[in-house]
């Protein structure tokens, strides 16, 4: 069975269908059958692919599956609450699915780079679907941040390919700081990391994310949080890791640790000061991703062979995918009812619609990484490994547990307690509907299962270097 045939067909199909929908977007076309048929084909093709090919490492199948899941959720939300630009949104969804699958399936640097760059396009278009002045500036920032990062990446990648024989995902060796020019190799290594740190995103480079989240429609936010951020993490953990020499990684490690810690604590405090619901959750995404950076720094500093730490990082990725999808879905359900993102407008939701409030409770607790939910696994493993490396820095990082709950209570408490706000009372909005339950309950189950039995996926995770 030819592997690349399958992979190419999945990507090609989505792009084709996306183009088809985009072309017909001016006509009142029935997009639902097309979109769902495409997703069905995707599911079948992906499962055939995973069935026919024994991946030695589960990272790529896991991220592909998460991608499929997030796309299905975005599609489900669009089918429930189609906006005026639903067809364009679905086209963007299919494009972005194809591009991110291309990133995960890439066999060489060229295809990785092309798909990585292409994945900017659908998301930029998606944010523009909002048709407001802010959405244009949000798109501009998103494109500028990512494009500058990618240019630096391209520069360093060409340098690496010309100077040594680096093959894709097979362990690097480029940019050795012991080589004649240590500063140069550190600079190039930084360039390699740049696009991934922007996509992740991490503290000084996070500027585009809150804007993009506030301007993107709900479906776009789900895909952005669940998948686009994971593309950054995937690049960091697999691609950059395989290009750069280990000595350089050890030299960069402490820097990553410091950035990760600042990002973890500062972003949690900044999040607690937000009044916009989506912005707050966007900041909490940054906090979650800081754990990845901290874990990666420790992974580099402790000799690149800590399987448990690696598994914890992968679990953190998957768990964030599920939790943020749930949170953005909940935001979307509120937004279609009241058309505002101000937290204060939702005061007294707990008394007004208790079932939605119950889902909010669950996802809030999952976002705060309570033990028993999936978020705890990654955090705990990363913290315990950090402790082994340095107990005093672990004591700093553990503060993140407290700032994390404060940040989450900042949106939870006004929504749950108190009498219903005038906006809620006038809206006559209904509580959770059947289809909303159908979307939310699998996420709840997934988060709990990953929390109490994480071994069901971690079992398949291997160290990088043996990627298939």
């Amino acid at each position, binding site marked *: 069975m030819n592997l690349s045939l399958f992979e190419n067909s999945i990507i090609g199909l989505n792009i084709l269908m996306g183009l088809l929908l985009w072309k017909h977007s001016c006509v009142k076309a029935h997009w639902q059958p097309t979109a769902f048929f495409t997703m069905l084909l995707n599911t079948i093709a992906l499962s055939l692919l995973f069935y026919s090919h024994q991946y030695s490492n589960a990272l790529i199948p896991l991220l592909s599956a998460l991608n499929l899941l997030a796309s299905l959720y975005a599609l489900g939300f669009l089918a429930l609450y189609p906006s005026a630009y639903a067809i364009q949104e679905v086209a963007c969804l299919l494009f972005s699915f194809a591009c991110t699958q291309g990133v995960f399936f890439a066999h060489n640097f060229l295809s990785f780079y092309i798909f990585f760059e292409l994945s900017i396009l659908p998301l930029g278009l998606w944010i523009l679907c909002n048709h407001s002045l802010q959405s244009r500036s949000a798109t501009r920032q998103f494109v500028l941040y990512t494009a500058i990062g990618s240019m630096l990446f391209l520069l360093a990648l060409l340098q690496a390919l010309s100077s040594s024989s680096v093959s894709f995902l097979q362990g690097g060796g480029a940019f050795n700081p012991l080589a004649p020019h240590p500063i140069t190799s550190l600079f190039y290594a930084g360039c390699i990391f740049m696009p991934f740190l922007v996509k992740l995103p991490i503290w000084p480079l996070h500027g585009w994310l809150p804007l993009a989240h506030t301007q993107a429609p709900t479906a776009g936010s789900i895909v952005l949080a669940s998948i686009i951020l994971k593309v950054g993490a995937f690049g960091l953990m697999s691609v950059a890791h395989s290009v750069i020499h280990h000595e350089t990684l050890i030299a960069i490690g402490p820097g990553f640790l410091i950035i990760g810690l600042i990002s973890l604590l*500062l972003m949690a405090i900044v999040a607690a000061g937000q009044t916009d619901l989506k912005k707050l959750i966007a900041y909490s995404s940054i906090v979650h991703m800081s754990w990845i950076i901290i874990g990666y720094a420790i992974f580099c500093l402790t000799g690149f062979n800590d399987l448990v730490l690696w598994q914890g990082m992968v679990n953190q990725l998957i768990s964030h995918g599920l939790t943020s999808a749930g949170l953005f879905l909940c935001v979307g359900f509120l937004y279609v009812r009241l058309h505002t993102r101000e937290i204060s407008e939702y005061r007294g939701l707990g008394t007004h619609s208790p079932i939605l409030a*119950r889902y909010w409770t669950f996802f809030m607790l999952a976002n705060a990484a309570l033990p028993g939910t999936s978020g705890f696994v990654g955090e705990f493993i990363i913290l315990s490994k950090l402790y082994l490396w340095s107990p005093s820095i672990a*004591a700093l990082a553990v503060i993140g547990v407290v700032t994390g709950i404060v940040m989450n209570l900042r949106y939870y408490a006004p929504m749950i307690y108190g009498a219903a706000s005038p906006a809620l009372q006038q809206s006559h909005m209904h509580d959770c509907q059947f289809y909303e339950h159908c979307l939310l309950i699998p996420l709840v189950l997934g988060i709990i299962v990953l929390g109490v039995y994480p071994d069901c996926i971690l079992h398949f995770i291997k160290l990088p270097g043996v990627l298939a």
Partner: protein
Amino acid sequence: MMSLASVLTTSWIVGLLASVTTLRAQKHSTSIEGSILILHFGFVMSALLLFPMQSSDTSIMLWHWAGPHHLSLMYNHVSAVLTMLLAVVSLCVQIYSFGYMDLDRRRTSFMSLLMFFTFMMWTVIIAQNWILLFIGWEGISVSSFLLIGFIREDLRTEKASLKAIVINRIGDAALIYAFCAIISQYMTLDYFVFSQQTQNMLWQSTAFACLVAIFAKSAQWPLHVWLPNSMVAPAPVSALLHAATLVTAGVILMIRLDLIIPSDSMFRTVVQALSSWTILLMSCSAYLQSDIKKVIAYSTIAQVGYMCIAVSVGATDLALYHLWTHGFFKAQLFLIAGLASVRRHHDQEMDALKGVFSKNWVMKLCLFVGLFALAGVPGFGGFYSKERIIEFALYHSPEKWWLQWSLLIGAALTAMYSARIGAILLTPYPQHSDEHHVEHSVHEERYMQLAIIALTFCTLIAGPFGELPVLGFLNDQAPRGVEFIKQALSHGWVVLFCSIFFIIYRFFSAFIERITCAIEPQPRIWQYVRADFYFDAMLDFIGRQYQKIASWLAVYESRVLEKKVPNLINHGCEHIGEQIDFSIKQAQQPDRGVRYMAFGVVLSAIFLISGSWL
């Protein structure tokens, strides 16, 4: 052994499934409530079945979690005693809340949350791997958070529940840190493995991290603030969570850690010092409160302080015994307080509760059983456990005079505030013709009274008859404790006399004082003590400052990200664009155009030639 394992696992998994009802229950649903009650009854049955089977430690592997951790359950004498306590109190509280929440449209939701709590608490009790313990540990703090904030319209509940979860989360952060340290020291979080390594004692820093967690959960000074605040919760919640089980989770953790903490370490002295201070301050505070539930809450903090001291002086069995008796009588007192306030339109002020049981001699009797047990009157619960703790401390660490005195004064103060409660509640209400105060029907009070009577019965037998099951089978495990008790009992009359004297004196004086005159003006220092030296207000202040800093940072950040950075980029782009525009315009001039063109041709030729040449 096999049957024990199967019973334990089965009932744990049944509990897991039962707690799923929290997701489902929304409106009044008698079927769900009935099944919850039946499940609780089954829990009591399995606790009874399991109770005699604690001769040896049993452990059951569940499944692999992640890394080196396997989730596993265990069962030993500590778990047996605690399971029994939890099962009985939980069932009584469920029955009680069936009546107490009768008019609330979310009663089923309330009861399933209580069920969820019970299951999580049981997980804490029988967890062997400490990952599982932590899942339960956090589960109980979450259910406490949700139950304190159960009445959502009230703004006080919002504040109280937020404070509870944030302070508990501070303890959790410390506990996570301690877990990391335990992993790095013992390479495992399996309790049976690391607790047996008595030659490899716990690090001092780990012990102190655990201490923060224990004090946050068990509401010891200075992390006690959340407990008095949480008295806005319904009475069943206070009875089950904030008296009998949740607040003792910290003590359970300390009992577990006892084996690997050196007996002469600074850790133990610090625990003794802080808990002594807690006992004194909280007992005084309890005496000065006017809200009946707050009196009992402060008293709970002080009693948990006794347990902490008992563990830290090495009498873990006595701590367990006090936990056992205290669980019964304190839950019973909370239930009675709840019944009293229900009769007065949910007014918890003691002055409003005067003469509430004037026509109800059964409840009056129950109240006195509870108060006598709390005060430690001979023959009632608290006497058996508390006085022994005091004796143990007197004989075991004679050099710590401050510890002995704070324990003794604490016991006297306990007698004083219990006498005060009794005295005020016995005072006839000024206008006793007010029959409309009894708003609830007899029908629902029946459940409440049934639960109270059942718990009173348990309180009566828990003290004298609990001695054998709780302490008896410890003979082979911790002989030092029992031996010591036998010695100490022959000299115990000093403490006994002290306690009895204070009870008699205080009870009668308070009784007379309450009847004859109104509340006297209080000195300023009393006000400070009553408000815990404004600790609560200080925390509020810190919270507000945090919020201010966060808002300022958020505004600053959005100004930078949404204004400054785009402006910078735009101006930069414009600048470059102008430059390009300018050079193009220059190039469009006829004579310069030729020059530029020639330059371009030469440049591209050089590129082409060099490219092909290389």
